[in-house]
């Protein structure tokens, strides 16, 4: 094996892509040729330098796997709904199924809905809509269409601000049943994610500061303002949901 041939195969040798006889031939040449040996040493050093110093390995955020499972589970078979949801359990998350089970439990055992139980209901409501592909009853990006539609079905009128400028275009609205009463659900978009915002009046007055939790691959954020309960939920990340909540609150 001469130098030209060795140089030609040096990368395949370095990358362990040569078969055994090919690699042995290079070994032998390198042992007797200082120039090729230097070239190989430089390549090896370069490799070590890249692997040690390249700004590349960060690793996925800890909750990303859960969010992927939730999203894949929810969108996998939207038409086959309840009977088959149990079969997503092997995937670990099965957010929808788990949420529905705990939602049922919450309905049965809870007289006083704590925030925790409400959170379960909110997650269930969101998951149910995603699974059933029934996200929107009235589809419109126009707040002046969505708001009257909701008002006509409910005994209150939720604020429906236009948040497109903040990166959260309105997709529509629907009705849900939460906290033992019908509630308005505003559906906003955040890039490729859906944000549901559940809104309903609260008997008690007094505002509360936003609280947040992350559960079953979803992020939830809730607050009380002007006698209304607001619960936002999405499979987007917590920072985006926070940005959404703040944009919504400041638009009111």
């Amino acid at each position, binding site marked *: 094996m001469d130098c030209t041939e060795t140089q030609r195969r040096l990368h395949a040798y370095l990358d362990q892509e040569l078969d055994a006889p090919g690699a042995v031939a290079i070994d032998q040449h390198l042992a007797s040729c200082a120039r090729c040996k230097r070239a190989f040493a430089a*390549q090896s050093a370069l490799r070590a330098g890249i692997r040690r110093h*390249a*700004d590349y390995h960060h690793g*996925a955020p800890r909750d990303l796997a859960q969010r992927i499972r939730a999203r894949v589970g929810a969108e996998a078979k939207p038409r*086959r709904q309840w009977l088959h949801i149990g079969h997503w359990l092997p995937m670990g998350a099965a957010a929808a199924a788990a949420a529905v089970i705990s939602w049922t439990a919450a309905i049965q055992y809870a007289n006083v809905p704590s925030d925790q139980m409400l959170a379960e209901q909110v997650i269930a409501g969101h998951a149910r809509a995603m699974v059933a592909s029934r996200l929107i009853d009235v589809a419109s990006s126009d707040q002046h269409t969505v708001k009257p539609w909701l008002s006509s079905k409910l005994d209150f009128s939720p604020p429906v601000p236009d948040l497109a400028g903040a990166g959260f275009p309105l997709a529509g609205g629907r009705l849900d049943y939460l906290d033992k009463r019908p509630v308005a659900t505003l559906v906003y978009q955040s890039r490729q994610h859906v944000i549901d915002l559940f809104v309903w009046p609260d008997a008690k007055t007094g505002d509360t500061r936003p609280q947040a939790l992350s559960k079953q691959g979803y992020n939830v954020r809730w607050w009380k303002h002007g006698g209304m309960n607001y619960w936002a939920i999405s499979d987007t*990340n917590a920072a985006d949901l926070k940005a959404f909540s703040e944009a919504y609150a400041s638009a009111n």
Partner: protein
Amino acid sequence: MAKIHVLAPAAHPIRKAADPLVSDERSRAQRFERIFLPHLDAAYDFARWLTRDERNAEDICQEAYLRAFKSLDSFEGESGRAWLLAIVRNTFYSWFRKNKPDAAAVPFDEDGTIAGAELEAPIESMDRILQQRDARRVVNAALERLPQEFREAIVLRELEDLSYKEIAEVANVPIGTVMSRLARARKLLLQHLQHTRES
């Protein structure tokens, strides 16, 4: 040679259960979990490197996994990782076209000569360069200067540890192209590093 053998025998699901539809669905979910979820870090790192943005990387990842799930039945490859990274890459490019329609593809002369790229150029003291205190900055700057296609080959080879065959699959080019891109990329990197030392 250590190759990635992700596929267990169940990659060819037995379709004899009482309810084939249900068992199909379950085995799909299990296959998906087993083949692709272990490579989430790789998918995220690659997406982050492509987008240069954490949040967009998360979105690309979620979308790519959804696509991977939907086309699971057509996966019969050897490497779940290469297949997934190829989907991440495609997802990125369709996202990129949608979000940055004005950004024209940078012309790239694959066969063009690289000025003074002779391997005989004095390549000494590479060790010394790489052990200096600013080695991290120097290495990343050199990577940054590579044309996109070259940099991608280096990333997939050195940082994702893919074989030539897998890189060819991800980048959708022949193996010969992978080899020439790697060789050229390394020449350029060595030159950049030498140059940094001299200046």
